[in-house]
């Protein structure tokens, strides 16, 4: 067990959503993990596996049905809207679609200054100065401050969203498919920026992605989610070179490799992921995690 208190610790959180009728979506089930200072924990899985819900639970955009979220050792699970506010400065989030995350009628400089104003940190000239610094930090020019979102390319817009997320000097940035909608050349540039910022500012990332090749590049540790539960958790090396859960192996097997010399003759895969929707009062079985080597946890099958 770590003696150092991690930045974030999640203990057995669950979240269900009602559907029409009496069924429930078991979006996240009994998930436990932690994020250390300065590290990137990637959460990978396919559509509907619960990775975004998990992010929203950590940042308290959703309230968990059970379990606890600890921020630097402090239990923030039951804090009210007013009490949680100071802690929001510590955790910021960047979403997939930068166009949807920016108000089309608000100048980007104003958008980036908004968190400073909301949290009473800076206004007026002081805020402008800080926003200018943030723009330079993410590789945009100060002269772009007065532009509107539509005047930017997708990659530049995502840089604006990153600048806004960094405005409050957070310790954790949650990137929820933050590079997924970008063209590959832009994706690489934004990922390089994220790595630079991590070095420079000591940030931790919770990097949510469906793309294993991207995750392999950016993560220190990886959690694989399947149907609402973490089925494998370990260092990047452990998960990618020594996957122990059948679902992780299946995912890795499915990723196309950008090298024609590594073409594999693969058997035709079949089968799809079952639905996470269960009738009320029933639900999937909770997996039992076993530590197969230090820091490498795998669900028993």
């Amino acid at each position, binding site marked *: 067990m770590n003696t150092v208190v991690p930045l974030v610790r999640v203990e057995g959180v669950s979240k269900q959503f009602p559907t029409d009728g009496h069924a429930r979506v078991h979006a996240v089930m009994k998930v436990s993990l932690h994020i250390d200072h300065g590290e990137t924990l990637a959460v990978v899985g396919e559509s509907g596996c619960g990775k975004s819900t998990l992010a929203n639970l950590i940042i308290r955009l959703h309230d968990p049905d059970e379990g606890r979220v600890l921020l630097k050792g402090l239990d923030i699970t039951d804090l009210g809207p007013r009490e949680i506010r100071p802690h929001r400065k510590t955790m910021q989030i960047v979403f997939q679609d930068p166009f949807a995350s920016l108000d089309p009628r608000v100048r980007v400089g104003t958008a980036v200054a908004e968190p400073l104003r909301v949290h009473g940190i800076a206004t007026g000239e002081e805020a402008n100065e800080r926003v200018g610094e943030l723009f330079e930090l993410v590789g945009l020019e100060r002269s772009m401050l007065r532009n509107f979102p539509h005047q930017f390319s997708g990659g530049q817009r995502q840089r604006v969203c990153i600048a806004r997320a960094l405005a409050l000097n957070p310790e954790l940035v949650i990137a929820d498919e933050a590079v997924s909608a970008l063209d*590959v050349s832009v994706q690489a540039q934004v990922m390089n920026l994220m790595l630079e910022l991590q070095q420079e500012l000591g940030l931790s990332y919770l990097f949510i992605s469906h793309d294993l090749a991207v995750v392999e590049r950016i993560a220190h540790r990886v959690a694989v989610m399947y149907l609402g539960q973490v089925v494998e958790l370990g260092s990047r090396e452990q998960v990618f070179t020594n996957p122990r859960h059948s679902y992780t192996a299946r995912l890795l097997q*499915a990723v196309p*490799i950008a*090298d*024609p010399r590594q*073409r594999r003759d693969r058997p035709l895969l079949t089968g799809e992921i079952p639905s996470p929707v269960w009738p009320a009062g029933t639900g999937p079985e909770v997996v039992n995690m076993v530590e197969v080597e230090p820091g490498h946890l795998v669900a028993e099958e």
Partner: protein
Amino acid sequence: MALLAVDNLTVTFDEFTAVDSVGFTIEPGETLGVVGESGSGKSVTALSIMRLIEMGTRAKIAGGRVELEMPDGSILDLLTQDEPTMRSIRGNQIAMIFQEPLTSLNPVYPVGEQIAEALRIHEGLGRKVAMVRAREMFDLVRIPEADKRIGQYPHEMSGGMRQRVMIAIALCCEPRLLIADEPTTALDVTIQAQILGLIKQLQVETGTAVILITHDMGVIAEVADRVIVMNQSRVVEQGPVEQIFHSAREPYTQGLLSAVPRLGSMAGKDEPEAFHLAGSLR
């Protein structure tokens, strides 16, 4: 003679040239990968081959030739054909599948009937015979529980199953060329692997040539025989897949390749690593 020869194709939207002097050929049974980033002109090229681009848009095919070799050996320039002729070519000679199968399928008809419809129109089959063939197509594209699934509506199926239905519709008239425009982009990676595997297998079974349009270099590396790289409306480089990936000459291609994360490239490294961008991205 190639199955399809595109020569000097140029397509404009008012002042903007979306496809600029594009040329390539595809041989029978071959898989040609068309790769490029958003807005590079990949889809406009495909829609121009099908002569679908001018429908309801301001696009204009400003020049070039798209020559298709017909089964009797004659050559047809698709850009000069009238609409009835094009209708007989679409589906029969060249079929197309798109990224989002849900918008390609009619929501108010069971999927089986939609396959049968294509067979009735193009092959002149009767209703009953067409349904029997539709059922066979379900087996061809490996849809499990085919007897139950054939009566389902599109919304009752998953994305992967819907794309299988689209492939079944596209292949039911045994086209000699299939154009697949980002066919797996909306799908999860395990489903993508299934669909790509299926397309490859069907190609072996039916001998159909495939033009695969994608932004994903991984997909290209897995399935293409030859590749054309598009950037800003032009073909910047083309060649066999090995050559494109291992000895690209153009700075744009080199840049693109340097930005692609390759699974396995981080093995043995402790820390995350930035991309070492090359070529035009340097």
